């Protein structure tokens, strides 16, 4: 039960409010609003045009609307999003496109006080990396970018970004058959 997963297949269009307590993978279209206590995965080709409130979101397709996550939001290299993000952890990978506001909560920004002895900062304060990593997605963990902004050698040569109409079916999430289960639809 813990790993139950809803998949909205590529030919499916849902308009309305979607609520649930399990992971949701979107390969088709959803318009309206989404509230989940788990992870929303928008796959390449998937389009979500909605107000979204989830624990985690991984956007590899298109997301239009505001996204509120209690844990994390990640835009992968094929992700495109227009809207605002509020989440304690936000990751934008090279190649992702985004326009909107990002709010990771309050950052304590010590003001640089020029003229004063600059050693006033005892140690750079760190954002604690206490939050758990994303686990639902089987994909390589985000690698640290190279320190210099030289063309990152690690990024695999990006194929032309897939047109949102044709879906590259990732072997993992789909399993064998494509099932469409929508629970608690209002």
């Amino acid at each position, binding site marked *: 039960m813990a790993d139950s997963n809803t998949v909205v297949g590529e030919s499916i269009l849902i308009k309305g409010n979607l609520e649930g307590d399990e992971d949701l993978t979107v390969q088709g279209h959803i318009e309206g609003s989404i509230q989940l206590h788990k992870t929303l995965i928008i796959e390449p080709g998937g*389009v979500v*045009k909605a107000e979204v409130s989830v624990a985690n979101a991984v956007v590899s397709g*298109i997301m*239009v609307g505001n996204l509120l996550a209690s844990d994390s939001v990640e835009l992968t290299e094929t992700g*495109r*999003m*227009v809207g605002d993000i509020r989440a304690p*952890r*936000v*990751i*934008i*990978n*090279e*190649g992702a*496109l*985004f*326009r*909107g*506001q*990002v*709010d*990771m*909560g*309050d*950052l*304590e*920004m*010590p*003001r*640089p*006080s*020029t*003229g*004063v002895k*600059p*050693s006033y*900062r005892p140690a*750079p304060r*760190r*954002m604690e*990396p206490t939050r758990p990593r994303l686990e639902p997605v089987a994909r390589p963990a*985000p690698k*640290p*970018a190279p*320190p*210099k*902004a030289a063309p990152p050698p690690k990024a695999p040569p990006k194929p032309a970004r897939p*047109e*949102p*109409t044709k879906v590259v079916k990732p072997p993992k999430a789909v399993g064998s058959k494509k099932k469409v289960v929508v629970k608690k639809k209002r």
Partner: protein
Amino acid sequence: MAAEPPGVIGKGISIRGNLSGGGDLIIEGSVEGQIALKNHLTIEETGVVQADIEAERLTIKGEASGNIVASERVAILTNAKVMGDIKAPVVVIEDGAGFKGNIDMDVKLPDGIL
């Protein structure tokens, strides 16, 4: 391009005012004011910048507040803290970074989405 070594503003140095020019620059100290560079600016872990920044490429490992315009790329690395609006064709935020503000990468969506 002449491979000039990057300029360095070290840990013990504070600058208040305008900083402009070409060449790569590394900031380990603090800068308050305005920065306009033609090339690559790196704000190191110890760097604290409170300035509007214009550059070709910007890599932030420390702290920055102010608005950022980069013609190529902005990378906010783990443990960096950034507050302000960013306009650049490529913006990368690593896991563990802190950011608050607006990002504008000029997203083109397929017709009919918006």
